[in-house]
């Protein structure tokens, strides 16, 4: 029997099983790319049926080339399906109504490198219909929140990949969207960046936003999701809550605090008569996030170079 222990007990939005109005809906969606002067075709999506209730967080996982980014682009309205129907907040994804209420973090961070982070957020805010004052205030706050406050005047082309990713998160959350579509949000992020993502996703969930996280690394996203969809070769291979999809028969994962070597030995002794054993033991303690934060707050780190 599979057992999963949820350490977190945070209340999320309604899950896919809950009777809620869908924020995102896909019916028989296909996307075919023509290659080589149209002589060859690549079916990136082969009939996707999906429904994501409002307030839910969906993890879209799958190997490279499984169609995750294509599906997210279709939902963001920057591409059109070859066939099938898509609805975002009960509107066609390419409609102004849908795009006004949704936000998208593209996979490759193709933001205008000529502009500073502040100017780029100003532009993107203006294109989203935000007033100048609002865009500047929200932009400045978001840049601080994602840790780019000190680099907000630098041109984006001078940013590292991780910094661009953080900027991408800032622009996605700029207009407080009802639907957030994040394509590989963790790519290039360091441990502090993961913490930033946690923070932003937590806030989005708290205000009832619907979030789609696409990633090929399950561990990067599943902690945030209350539903997973596994894409393989352009098809949905499996869907369900992480608790169901990720459970493995006969294996329990515990995170125990305050147990010394003697206690661990006692645990082993208790397990043995029951036919069980500890298969992996990782040292607890500081994670990279704590290490980075500790180093950043140390006096040496703040000394001028």
């Amino acid at each position, binding site marked *: 029997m599979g057992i999963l222990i949820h350490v977190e007990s945070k209340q999320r939005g309604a899950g896919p099983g809950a009777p809620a109005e869908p924020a995102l809906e896909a019916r028989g969606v296909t996307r075919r790319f*023509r290659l080589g002067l149209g002589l060859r075709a690549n079916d990136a999506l082969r009939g996707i049926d999906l429904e994501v209730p409002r307030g839910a967080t969906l993890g879209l996982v799958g190997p490279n080339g499984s169609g995750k980014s294509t599906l997210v682009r279709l939902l*963001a*309205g*920057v591409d*059109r399906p070859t066939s099938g129907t898509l609805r975002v907040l009960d509107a066609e994804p390419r409609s102004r109504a849908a795009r006004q209420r949704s936000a998208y973090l593209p996979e490759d961070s*193709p*933001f*205008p490198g000529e502009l500073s982070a502040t100017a780029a957020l100003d*532009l993107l805010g203006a294109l989203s219909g935000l007033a100048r004052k609002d865009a500047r205030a929200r932009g400045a706050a978001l840049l601080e929140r994602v840790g780019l406050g000190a680099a907000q005047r630098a041109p984006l082309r001078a940013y590292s990949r991780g910094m661009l990713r953080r900027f991408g998160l800032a622009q996605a959350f700029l207009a407080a969207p009802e639907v957030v579509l994040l394509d590989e949000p963790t790519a290039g992020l360091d441990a502090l960046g993961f913490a930033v993502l946690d923070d932003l996703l937590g806030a989005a969930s708290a205000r009832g936003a619907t979030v789609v996280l696409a990633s090929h690394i399950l561990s990067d996203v599943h902690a945030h999701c209350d539903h997973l969809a596994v894409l393989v070769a352009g098809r949905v291979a499996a869907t369900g809550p992480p608790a169901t999809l990720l459970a493995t028969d006969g294996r329990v994962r515990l995170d125990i605090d305050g147990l010394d070597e003697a206690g661990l030995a006692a645990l082993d002794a208790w397990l043995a008569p029951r036919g069980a054993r500890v298969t992996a033991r990782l040292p607890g303690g500081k994670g990279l996030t704590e290490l980075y934060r500790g180093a950043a707050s140390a006096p040496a780190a703040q000394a001028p170079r």
Partner: protein
Amino acid sequence: MRPDIDPRGACLLALLEARRAAPLGLLALLFAATLTAARFGGAAQLEPALAGLVALDRGPGVAAAAARASAATLGLALGALMLVPHAAGLATRWRHGDGDWLGARPVGPLGALAASLLGIALAACAVVTVVLGATGLCAATQGATSGDAAEGSQASARALVWRAGPSGHVLLHAGESFVHRLPDVALPVGAALRVRLQNTVEGAPYGDAELRVVDDNHAPLSAPTRARIVRRTYAEVPLSATGAPHARGSLKTSGSPPPERDATPTARGGLDVVVTALGPGAIAVLGPRPIELWGPPRAPWRADLALAGRALALLIAAAGLAAGFGAWVAAPLATLGVAALALAFAALTPEAAALAATWLPGSGLGAALDVAAEGRLPAGAPPGQGVGAALSVAAGLALARAALRSWRHAA
């Protein structure tokens, strides 16, 4: 088709596109290249083409103006090389990157395209300003106006008022005359009339010509002027406006298209322009519209507008079309297409060129530069060229809009 974009967003997007189309570094390079060409090139190529009784300007001021005009031609060509391929790559950039952040916003492709083309038009303004600023071309012609006039060259103190005459060439053998009647023209005080001539090298290395202007009563409006034509040049006579009779009549005569400009008249009347080949060689009156009236400039800034307006119209129209073509074919192919179109228009027959001159963007730019190269002030650009440029941009927008059904690559 209604642009679907917030005005502030459109302005910021236009500014971004302008920065991309004409980055400050490239503008600085363009300025340096044009300035260098204006300072060190071109003047040596100026050689007297007329060795006769007509004293055309060949002073140092005019030589410098010629160098500046050549540099301006170079600068504008470099500017076109900068802007047109950039515009041609607009759709490609959207499909392979920009569309991801642009297309996810509540912005329609039409509005975004219009804003981007506005940015490219701003970049074209920057290019033209940099080129004309680096050459100092207009300032130089205006300087030549006073400087050369002080040296006794009154022709330099004049600006082109209009062109007229047959649309094709007229060949004159020794003893033959060409008469062109202008039934009702305004003659500003201090005007001069020029006719473009060329020695045809039929049996002689040069040909002498006599140019006369007479009024309706065959009274001379100027003393007959004799010129020796070695290659291609202008014969010019100063006109006496006070001697013109005040006859009224229609301008519609056979082979006489209406003058393209009118100036503040000080006298009106009909006149005949008579060119007589004196031999030994034959000469040609070079169409289209080989007869030019030059008068004192009313506002020197109009000369700036004449060059800048034509150059801007040309660059903006080319960029607009390139953006449209680039949405359907690869950017280099779209750039070549625009270049081919420009060449096709440049190779228009004289009749077609005369018809298109008022609305074809950039039409007459070469002639205006030639005029500036002589240290004179070119005539203003016809407003129709602005309309032509706007129509070209609209065509480009429509082409691009039709192709950009998706912000991503539509493969």
